[in-house]
């Protein structure tokens, strides 16, 4: 069974982000980059499916600039077999739909039985690419999945997707797209052997032209990034616990009208 996993390189949560010179993108100087955490759940799940079946191939795919290779190396170090890097300046302002269209071409070329991705990347938090990819491919998809089980013939997959108040369980014919929610597994740490081995694994470079994408016009464009408006300074209520609580409740009801 061939499984394709989509991974994205994003700034580490704790990294400070500053608005860049053009006002539309961040200044990437000094940023620590990581694999988007939800994508790690997807990689882990793909590897587990392969291990359980005792055979198969897991291919990691990332769309991003040169530095995105580090993210692909991390996925290879975890155990993916090979990687594809969609790397083209023409895709620098790609919105979710452009990204989905580009990845759909890769997927058609690779023809996997299953595509896994994270429920969202933690940079722009759009959470749309997986579903849009399914739409472009005409495949079924299930988002925010907490569990999966591929049947013995690799013809269908049973998944539990997280919804308000519960879990909805579906059986999807393969091929399909699944997006991973936190809690479905605990991603492994790459072993030293895995890290060394990753250096020898193939990362194939792909340009927009290889995907038949001549010109790329995003459907949604960022016009401006802004800093958060400052919150008014807060008030620390001092005093004995009992008095402080009384005053807090009074302030919440009368001043803030929050309750």
């Amino acid at each position, binding site marked *: 069974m061939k499984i394709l996993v989509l991974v994205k390189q994003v700034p580490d949560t704790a990294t400070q*982000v500053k608005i860049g010179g053009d006002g539309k993108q961040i200044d990437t100087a000094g940023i620590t980059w990581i694999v988007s955490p939800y994508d790690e759940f997807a990689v882990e799940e793909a590897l587990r499916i392969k291990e359980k079946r005792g055979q198969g191939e897991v291919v990691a795919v990332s769309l991003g600039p040169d530095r995105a290779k580090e993210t692909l190396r991390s996925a290879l170090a975890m155990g993916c077999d090979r990687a594809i890097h969609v790397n083209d300046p023409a895709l620098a302002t790609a919105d979710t739909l452009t990204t989905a269209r580009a990845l759909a071409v890769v997927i058609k070329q690779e023809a996997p039985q299953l595509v896994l991705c994270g429920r969202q990347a933690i940079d722009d938090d759009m959470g749309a690419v997986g579903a849009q990819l399914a739409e472009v491919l005409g495949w079924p998809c299930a988002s925010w999945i907490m569990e999966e089980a591929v049947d013995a013939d690799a013809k269908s997959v049973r998944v539990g997707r997280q*919804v308000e108040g519960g879990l909805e369980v579906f059986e999807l014919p393969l091929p399909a797209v699944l997006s991973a929610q936190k809690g479905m597994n605990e991603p492994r740490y790459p072993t030293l052997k895995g890290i060394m081995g990753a250096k020898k694994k193939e990362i194939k470079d792909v340009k927009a032209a290889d995907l038949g994408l001549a010109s790329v016009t995003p459907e949604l464009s960022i016009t401006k990034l802004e800093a958060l408006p400052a919150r008014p300074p807060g008030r620390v209520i001092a005093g004995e616990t009992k008095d402080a*609580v009384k005053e807090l409740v009074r302030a919440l009801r009368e001043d803030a009208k*929050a309750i």
Partner: protein
Amino acid sequence: MAGAFWCVVEDDRKGMPKKVMAEVIGEAARLGGPVEAVWLTDKATDEGLKQLAGWGAGKVWLLENAGLAPYRGEVWVPPVAELAAKESPKAILAPVTSRQREFMARLAAKLGVGLSADSVSLAMDGDKLVATRPIYAGKLLSKATWAKQPWMATLRPNVFKPADAQDGKSAPVERPSLAIPAAQMKFVERREEASTGLPELTEAEIVLSGGRGMKGPENYVILEELGGVIGAAVGASRAAVDAGWRPHRFQIGQTGRTISPKLYMGFGVSGAIQHLAGMRTSKVIVAINKDPEAPIFKIADYGIVGDLFEVVPELTKEFKRLLEK
């Protein structure tokens, strides 16, 4: 009608629109309307249709079919895309919920238009719509605009001002004749979560959140007791979830739920960036922490530096006393 603002209805699966729809419809009206609701359901109720009209929908497009429940993308997208091609709406809006999040993304791909997910503000700039949404763990705001119509956006709950409900209003209901495709995904079962008896985290007007300072899973009962008194949901920080004290569905933050309640109260929550990402658009933020240096105090409107195990019982007692009055 051409040029309408469509609001895709999120319902309670029992024939009533959820109250978050008052926010979506209210925003569509503020942006200039005309406002039309699009409701996909296996069973609508007259009461539900009246509710949509009462909030300000001038028309309801009702797609009622047993195949539409539970939500499956491949069943929902084609009829709405067909209707959109006929009716040319100017915009399609929906609240952020588990199914709308996926449905709106798929529909945008089908229609070949842009989607602004989890928007916190929408505004007209001349004849263009501009969406504002938090990015990078809520550290920045991004403004974006669309290359063409329909402009599609999902709206973060509890952020947009809800429309006032007006009694006695009704709106024409159109049942368009559209093919509902057969499902590829076979529904197996729905497993309900054990109910806490408290509101859903993303829908609650008041949220209490317990962090590492809760010291253990057994202590969340004091937050649940307070939650029961004031009608609040109880969530947790990543530290508490990763320690196994609470199931992941209760996690607030970048790798959990994003909430925007009227009142957020953090107990023993330090305020790590990844937690702030999930709650910083809350209207009023209260922090209770022993450590005066905890970063959460930087964004809190009110704070008490103290032991939560003393503060929580006092809060419960004080609110009980007020409610008895």
